[in-house]
């Protein structure tokens, strides 16, 4: 796929190696390794300068991110024994650094390749189904699909339930698709617009829209990383709800309303 622009062509193809069953996008692998390297360097630097009690600015920033995500997980999941925090924080840091890498001149985001985002989405949805089976049991997992709604008129052989179960299956399938496409298109279009602005505007005024768009891209990169993580956590929280939890929730629900926990899962339901 080549994009024709006024001055020359913008190539959005990934350089590949190999043929179809084992085709490798070289630049994606390369940039993913760079992101992993950056994360390892951050972790090593942080460990070397680790100070208990009075953290430096760098340590404070990372601790702020981790504490924010931990409190979000605690609010969303409640007291369920799921060790999701390491996975969620790793996901967030990886996607954040990956989104920001593309803003540097010679690098590209690993997340501007649909393969990366689909991989991440399959991972988090696989985790959801793993925990769903673990918490509800195989029977409860299947049964859940048939107990979404209790319509007043059940119909012969309960066929309304089957229709609603089908809708629920469609929703489950659409989750990884929307998760991956949301992240991919945001980052891909962000980088494409930078290239288009450079080639469409005269060189004298190109920096003005360019800088505005890059500032917007910084915002979008952070928000999309947070949304991916938050939706993963909220999906897992919804997928591990059991009927026992619902009763408990209604008992203690009144004190909870209006805070982050209830509302975040509401946003996730709408997504």
């Amino acid at each position, binding site marked *: 796929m080549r*994009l024709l622009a006024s001055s020359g062509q913008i190539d*959005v193809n990934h350089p590949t190696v190999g043929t179809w069953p084992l085709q490798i996008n070289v630049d994606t692998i390369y940039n993913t390794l760079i992101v992993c390297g950056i994360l390892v360097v951050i972790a090593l630097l942080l460990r070397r300068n680790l100070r208990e009690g009075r953290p430096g600015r760098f340590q404070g920033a990372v601790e702020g991110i981790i504490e924010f995500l931990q409190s979000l997980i605690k609010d969303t999941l409640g007291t369920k024994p799921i060790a999701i925090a390491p996975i969620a924080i790793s996901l967030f840091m990886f996607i954040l650094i990956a989104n920001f890498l593309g803003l540097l001149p010679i690098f590209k985001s690993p997340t501007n390749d649909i393969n990366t985002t689909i991989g991440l989405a399959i991972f988090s949805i696989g985790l959801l189904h793993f925990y769903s089976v673990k918490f509800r049991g195989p029977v409860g997992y299947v049964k859940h699909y048939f107990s979404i709604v209790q319509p007043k008129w059940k119909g012969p052989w309960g066929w309304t339930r089957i229709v609603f179960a089908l809708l629920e299956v469609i929703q489950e399938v659409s989750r990884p698709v929307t998760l991956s496409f*949301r992240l991919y*298109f945001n980052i891909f*279009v962000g980088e494409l617009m930078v290239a288009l602005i450079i080639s469409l505007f005269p060189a004298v005024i190109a920096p003005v829209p360019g800088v505005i768009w890059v500032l917007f891209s910084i915002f979008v990169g952070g*928000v999309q990383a947070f949304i991916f993580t938050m939706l993963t956590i909220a999906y897992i929280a919804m997928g591990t709800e059991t009927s026992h939890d619902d009763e408990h929730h209604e008992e203690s629900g009144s004190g909870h309303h209006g805070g982050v926990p209830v509302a975040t899962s509401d946003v996730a339901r709408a997504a």
Partner: protein
Amino acid sequence: MTDKGLILGLSAVAAGLMLGLGALGAGIGDGLVSSRTVEGTARQPEARGSLLTLMFIGVGLIEALPIIALGIALLLLFANPLQPK
């Protein structure tokens, strides 16, 4: 009119419609989210932090849709898959 010209013209119209309608929907959605955030902050100023976080989540979810439309519109304009070679 040649096939090529027809496809090109219709693609341009489709891209315009796509961006306009996408921006319209996203504008309405963003407006609703921000107005409710302002209302909530006015009613309960101490909830500002958590409301702001929620607003950014909502705005991020909404903004993804016009950006997907922009991606498909750019694809239609500059790398049309329907265009005969």
